[in-house]
């Protein structure tokens, strides 16, 4: 999958201002960014559900704007916030969605694998929140997709359900693009993280590279003062010389990745 110079405007409003992104087969990439950064728009363009204003986009060697049903059959989507088909039975819904694809999973096995084996005859609306989410994953992958899109998959989850969902995603063996505004989620699930802020990819790399690239200044505090610096070691050395010995109440605080990320978001917004 490759994206270069992707732009999208709704009338006067520019939502994407030149997005570059590439993904290797089998890799999990997180598209991380604050609300309104353009994450969902990007995914919808990649799925061929929205026409872009400008830029080059290839997904599975095809331009999504021209992708037909055969191309679409190689993609899977786990939607955010869906309560669809409430009256249908779980097994019936999964079999119906499977029938859209040329070579789907055996639905009974898939339900079993996702821990829904006993609920095939339940109505969808009778599932618990976590079970509903697992069904969404089953619906997204029943067609044996080569690429799976997860759009803010854990929004509105309690911590327990979130953990369960993360464990489930980690077992999936396919190319995955997920959007999230939760840094911890991106770090946990993704091989590489792309930070999308105000319609542009600000950083793209492993979470270690991300930490290095977005590093916010460290805070150095001591009895007589405090200072923000990118080189705390240097400052500590100077203080050491100034006090001619141990610095009283010296404290060096490195920013967490979370703080660095927020710092990046604020900097880009300014």
């Amino acid at each position: 999958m490759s994206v270069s110079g992707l732009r999208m405007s709704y009338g006067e409003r520019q939502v994407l201002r030149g997005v570059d992104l590439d993904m290797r087969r089998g890799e999990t990439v997180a598209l991380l960014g604050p609300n309104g950064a353009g994450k969902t728009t990007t995914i919808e363009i990649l799925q061929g559900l929205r026409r872009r204003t400008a830029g080059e986009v290839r997904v599975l060697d095809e331009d999504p704007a021209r992708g037909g049903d055969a191309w679409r059959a190689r993609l899977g989507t786990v939607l955010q916030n869906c309560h669809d088909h409430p009256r249908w039975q779980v097994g019936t819904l999964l079999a119906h969605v499977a029938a859209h694809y040329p070579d789907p999973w055996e639905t009974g096995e898939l339900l079993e694998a996702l821990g829904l084996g006993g609920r095939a005859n339940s109505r969808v609306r009778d599932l618990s929140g976590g079970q509903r989410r697992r069904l969404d994953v089953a619906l997204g992958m029943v067609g044996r997709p080569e690429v799976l899109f997860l759009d803010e998959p854990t929004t509105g989850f309690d911590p327990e359900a979130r953990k369960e969902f993360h464990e489930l995603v980690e077992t999936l063996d396919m190319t995955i693009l997920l959007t999230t505004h939760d840094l911890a989620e991106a770090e946990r699930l993704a091989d590489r993280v792309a930070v999308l802020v105000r319609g542009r990819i600000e950083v793209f790399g492993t979470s270690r590279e991300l930490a290095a690239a977005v590093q916010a200044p460290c805070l150095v505090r001591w009895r007589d003062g405090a200072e923000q610096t990118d080189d705390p070691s240097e400052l500590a050395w100077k203080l050491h010389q100034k006090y001619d010995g141990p610095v009283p109440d010296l404290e060096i605080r490195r920013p967490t990745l979370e703080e660095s990320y927020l710092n990046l978001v604020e900097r880009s917004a300014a």
Partner: protein
Amino acid sequence: MNTLALGIRRGLIEQGSILRDGKELGANVAGLVIYLMLILWIGGNPAGGGIGMTAFITVGFIAFTVFSAGITTLPMLIAADQEEGALRRLRTLPRGLPVYLTGRATSLVAHIALNSVLILAIGNLAGGLALPSSLYGWATLTWVLLLGTLAVVPVGAMIGALLPSAKTAAAVVSLPTMLLMIASGVMVPMTMMPEPVRWFAQVFPLYWQGHGLRAAFLPSAAAEPGGVWQLGTAAAVMGAWAVAGMVLAPRLLRRAIRT
């Protein structure tokens, strides 16, 4: 499985799931019970022009079944599909939209066919309703039902695509539907209506649906406003609604569904 077969199967599963739903089934059965009580209590009375109330009520119920399925039920279901995310999901599936539209049409036709058959059966068994005796009568019944359905389905689909939620859909369509039902001679014989109301009602397909159905069931047109059957006009008005709707609806639907 090919797209048409998959869509039809989707429609049948959908209709089955609605019938298994206690609330939906209850509302449907309640309508049939009201019909049964009406023909038992006042079915024997004359409706004017030499026809009995049973035939008049039966035609009114069938016409209204078609009309409300297209104008009320369909928009509510489409709005619910948008709200709950079924449409979003189908857009991401290969062949999702054609399967969805075929499915909706199938479930609607199944709903109308099932209720029409039940109304005719109850009317015949409990109220002694005379079914059409000739092939011509059955043919009239069939084409009027089909064309009446085609006339209201695109309109209902457009309403459903435009409204944000099922609740809004119910609120927006229920009052105009009620007024049209009263004005169109399906509850009160048309000859009892003032002249301007008659003209107003004749613009809409519901009146012509009822008129066409009466032509299938009744021996004489004595109770009709003009005193004669106007099946050509009925076909023209319902056909015009169907064609206009089918030209406009796909564009509007595509726009509503894509964004």
